[in-house]
């Protein structure tokens, strides 16, 4: 007689096993689903961020297209107006682009840079104002101000702003001389803004004192900046 040692599965045990396997599969599905859902959440924020980056990149690319087209046009216009072979400049002087040339016989680009210098250059400002006063017959010309060369930044930047230089001029002269000095300041290609004016005296000898704002603006550079997207 042979003994059968392995227990035969009862129908109830088979049902239990099926149920267990079912629950195991269910658990795995839930686990995988939860992983996918959680990862999807992370991926979604990544996708949204990248979409933002893409949108900004497209905008930058379009802006670069516009800038390229504008720059080409600007370069052509610059050549036509500032690097032309016209014998005279826009003021009627000789169009001379050599380094030794002196106003008014300079080229148009230098005229523009004389109108608003790119460096502080206090001595040059004093020389200009002295010349305006003496040329118009003002005697004893005096200029009061502080040379701030050491503390003023004239470095080129991609978004330069005009920097104010305040000086006070004074001198003596006839009514015509005083009037002519003021007219010359107003007609100068370099903007001089009189902020306070005092005229005193009588007859042919008047005293003029004027507070003046002059300006310079550092050179501009092509500014290409990188923006960090958040």
């Amino acid at each position, binding site marked *: 007689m042979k003994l059968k040692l392995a227990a035969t599965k009862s129908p109830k045990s088979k049902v239990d096993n099926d149920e267990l396997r079912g629950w195991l599969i269910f658990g795995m*599905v839930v686990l995988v689903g939860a992983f996918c859902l959680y990862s999807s959440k992370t991926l979604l924020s990544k996708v949204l961020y990248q979409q933002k*980056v893409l949108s900004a990149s497209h905008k930058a690319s379009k802006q670069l297209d516009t800038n390229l087209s504008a720059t080409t046009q600007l370069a052509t216009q610059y050549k036509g107006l500032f690097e032309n072979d016209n014998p005279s400049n826009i003021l009627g002087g000789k169009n001379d682009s050599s380094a030794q040339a002196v106003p008014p016989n300079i080229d148009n680009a230098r005229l523009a840079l004389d109108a608003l210098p790119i460096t502080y250059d206090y001595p040059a400002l004093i020389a200009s104002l002295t010349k305006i006063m003496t040329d118009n017959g003002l005697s004893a010309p005096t200029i009061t101000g502080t040379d701030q060369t050491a503390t003023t930044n004239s470095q080129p930047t991609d978004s330069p702003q005009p920097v104010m230089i305040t000086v006070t001029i004074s001198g003596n002269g006839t009514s015509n001389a005083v009037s002519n000095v003021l007219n010359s300041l107003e007609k100068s290609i370099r903007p001089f803004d009189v902020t306070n004016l005092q005229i005193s005296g009588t007859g042919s000898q008047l005293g003029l004192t004027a507070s003046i704002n002059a300006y310079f603006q550092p050179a501009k550079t092509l500014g290409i900046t990188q923006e960090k997207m958040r």
Partner: protein
Amino acid sequence: MKGIEFNLLPKSRSDAMHAQAQQEELMAKALSAGLVCACLFILLFVYGDIVQKSQISSTNKSITEKTAKLQQVPNINTILTVQNQLKTAASLNQTKHISSRIFAYLAKLTPNNSNVSNLVLDFSTNTVKVDGGADSANTVNAFIDALKSSQYSSLGTKNAAFSSVVESSFSINTKGVVYSLTATFDPALFANNLIDSNGKIQAPSLSVPSGVTGRSDPASVFNQGSH
């Protein structure tokens, strides 16, 4: 005739079948949900890690190329500087004050029998201070009236030129009277940004009511012997 159904299954078997059906339904739902999650994951992965990354890389390459092209334009910094200086200079010229107009204004406003010995124009407060002498108090009053009633016209509009006219000091001496007047002026009188339809800068025109006698020579305003 409706047939009669007999449920001959034992209750335990019936409960087991019901539980199995519920389990299968739950499993089906879980599988569907899992499948949706997996699909979503795959879609987002493919779009985010393959499609978008390739698009970003391509756009970045294009930006780098265009930037290099822009930087290679000859004299670009000089061109930009000249353009910027011209733009700012034009703007600064428009905001500056045309102080020389004071001579023409004074000539119209100062009565014949008076003079000015000191004039202070302050453009930060828009005030003018006039010190001088006159033959009589009536002449000084005429000067005050002229300041109060004068108007300027510019670009088709007429406005009062001076306000808050005050005689800050007055004294009589052997030669006549010495006066000091202060007034607030309309900044448009000295503005350089009044531009007409043709694009030309317009200077305001000052008008003084009849009865006040002005002068033709602005220089004579400062002559001590003019009254």
